[in-house]
């Protein structure tokens, strides 16, 4: 495996350099074993395309999103103001993140607290890398495969980013099939609103199982996601149907990285 280069902001600054973009890794991307693979895939793509980026490393802290959704506005704003101090100290202008929750919070809720940055989701970055010709892939292992994309709520409905992930998937020469509930009508995976961190209330089904059924109806070989939490939920859902040997749940970045042999 090729070495990955992941400079931190502090290292860049010490070298007198400024990155084009800050890669906001997020808590899942930093600590969750599954999500770390997505983080690495993104880094590999950034390295390959010679995008000058940096991470905050240990200076990054939770955006406060789950606290806010769970009603703890104090904690959210504490986190936000701390992060804004760090981001502003490094004069960050542009942020890319693989987590739609971080994306939404940084993009929409930080400006009101004084943190103004251009924030994009990694699928938007991938889309523009393709458009600029910096990134090319052949379908590779995905050619002709049946892929269905699950819209993360905080990317789709919350911020109306529906096309970027699909445009990137198109590059894989695969067969893209939509679930009956997709885009604005996409069903949640069940993780949002801090549900990821608690047991669900009493009901007759888990939300991720309901959503996985939508996906299974399309008979996919791969369920593509753009959110570490959706990824966990859909992976568990697929296991629930004992389909983990037939159906893979992958982040779009992982697919692009592996189609590019990274």
């Amino acid at each position, binding site marked *: 495996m090729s070495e990955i280069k992941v400079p931190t902001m502090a290292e860049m600054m010490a070298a007198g350099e400024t990155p084009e973009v800050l890669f906001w890794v997020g808590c899942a991307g930093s600590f969750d074993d599954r999500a770390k693979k997505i983080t690495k895939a993104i880094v590999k793509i950034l390295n390959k395309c010679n995008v000058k980026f940096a991470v905050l490393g240990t200076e990054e802290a939770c955006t406060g999103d789950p606290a806010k959704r769970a009603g703890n506005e104090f904690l959210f704003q504490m986190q936000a103001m701390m992060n804004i101090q760090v981001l502003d100290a490094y004069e960050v202008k542009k942020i890319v993140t693989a987590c739609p929750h971080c994306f939404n919070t940084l993009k929409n809720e930080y400006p009101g607290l004084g943190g103004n940055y251009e924030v994009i989701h990694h699928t938007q970055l991938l889309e523009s890398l393709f458009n600029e010709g910096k990134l090319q892939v052949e379908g590779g292992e995905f050619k002709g495969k049946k892929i269905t994309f699950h819209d993360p709520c905080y990317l789709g409905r919350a911020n109306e980013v529906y096309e970027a992930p699909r445009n990137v998937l198109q590059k894989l020469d695969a067969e893209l099939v939509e679930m009956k509930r997709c885009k604005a009508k996409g069903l949640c995976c069940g993780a949002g609103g801090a549900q990821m961190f608690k047991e669900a209330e009493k009901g007759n089904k*888990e939300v991720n199982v309901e959503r996985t059924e939508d996906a299974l109806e399309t008979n996919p070989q791969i369920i593509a996601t753009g959110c570490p939490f959706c990824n966990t939920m859909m992976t568990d859902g697929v296991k629930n149907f004992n389909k983990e040997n037939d159906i893979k749940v992958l982040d779009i970045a992982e697919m692009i990285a592996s189609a590019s042999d990274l």
Partner: protein
Amino acid sequence: MGISSIAFILIFLGAAAFFAFKIRQIIQNIKLGRSLDRTDNKGERLKTTIRVALGQSKMVTRPIPGILHIFIYVAFIFTQIELIEIIIDGVSGNHRIFFEPLGGFYVFIISLIEVLSALALIATFTFLARRNLLKIPRFVKSEMTGWPKLDGNIILYLEFLLVMFIFTMNGADEALRLQGASHAEGSGSFGFAISSILGPNVFGSMDVATLHLLERIGWWGHFIVVMGFMVYLPFSKHLHIFFAFPNVYFSNLKPKGQFTNMEAVTNEVKLMMDPNADPFAAPAADANAEPQRFGVKDVKDLNWVNILNAYSCTECGRCTSSCPANITGKKLSPRKIMMDVRDRVEEVGKGLRKDPNFDDGKSLLGDYITEEEVWACTSCNACVQECPVNIDPLSIIVDLRRYLVMEESKIPAELMTMNTNIENNQAPWQFSPTDRLNWRDED
């Protein structure tokens, strides 16, 4: 002035006065909410109103009910022209006062109303069937029993009656005019699209006296149904026919994922984070003002748009039928949240009008909405997306959570742990913040 004109005027004024009285109360109730500035972006708001409220753009995302609803909606709008004529005729004792001056255009308008009424009738039957025979799931959820269920049907019965009266009136008048006995100028067919067929075929064999009676029954029936509808509206989900417009106009234009940043919290957090801050420099705004509660416990803690939302809710259940929590059998139903707000604000409003210090010891949270419902939400915004009149149940749910967490420290244990982790470890899990970059060197 004839006795019928007097009766007409009395009924009309009585209904209008009652309607105005109830609407005033409703506006008072809406004003119980906290202030919120939604006067920005007038152009964008107007455009949204034209698209979503006038243009029904979100209705047609479900094509069958969407298009059928448009039949009733457009029929309703055009029938108002006929209603205006009825009012003028009723007051002045004339008959079809617009017929002479408008001529061919009158025939066109009444024909249009007839065609739309026929389409509305189809819609009415379909809707009745969807509610009562097909039992479409969103119409038979637990919050849709009792009054809400009856309310949904009453309007359809009224719609049916209204269309019947319109055709009785026009059909009988057509038959009369064919015999040269209509009170309208001239003789021969009016040429209205549907009653010119109904007239001879249904009413053709009746004598003049019966026809005059039927024509009057149709005419008065039409008028009485509309007046009855007006009196009934303030108690019904059908208030949306008016409230949908301001409701959409004042709806949130920002990205759906953006939750408000609470200003009161910002001030405190800034003080906490600024080592030089003088804690006593904080403005003691108004010493007599009640300290504002964090979040929402009762309807007075809501903002006025939340309450306007509740009065505009059509109880269509599109929100609930797309809510992941509700779909998977949890208690949460965004429609019920809106219905609860309306019921509670009616109760509080009524109480306050009797006694300015009204306190029944009840509250929206607890007596109407349970914590279990509040915590089942994934904040997915499906309800907001689906609502045809841009209602935002999610913002209410979040404000209820804010109250629970910040005022009462009532929070599911796992979320308490999550918060502690964020505070101590800068992540919702128990990892050391110093390990945050370890992934870089792992395989």
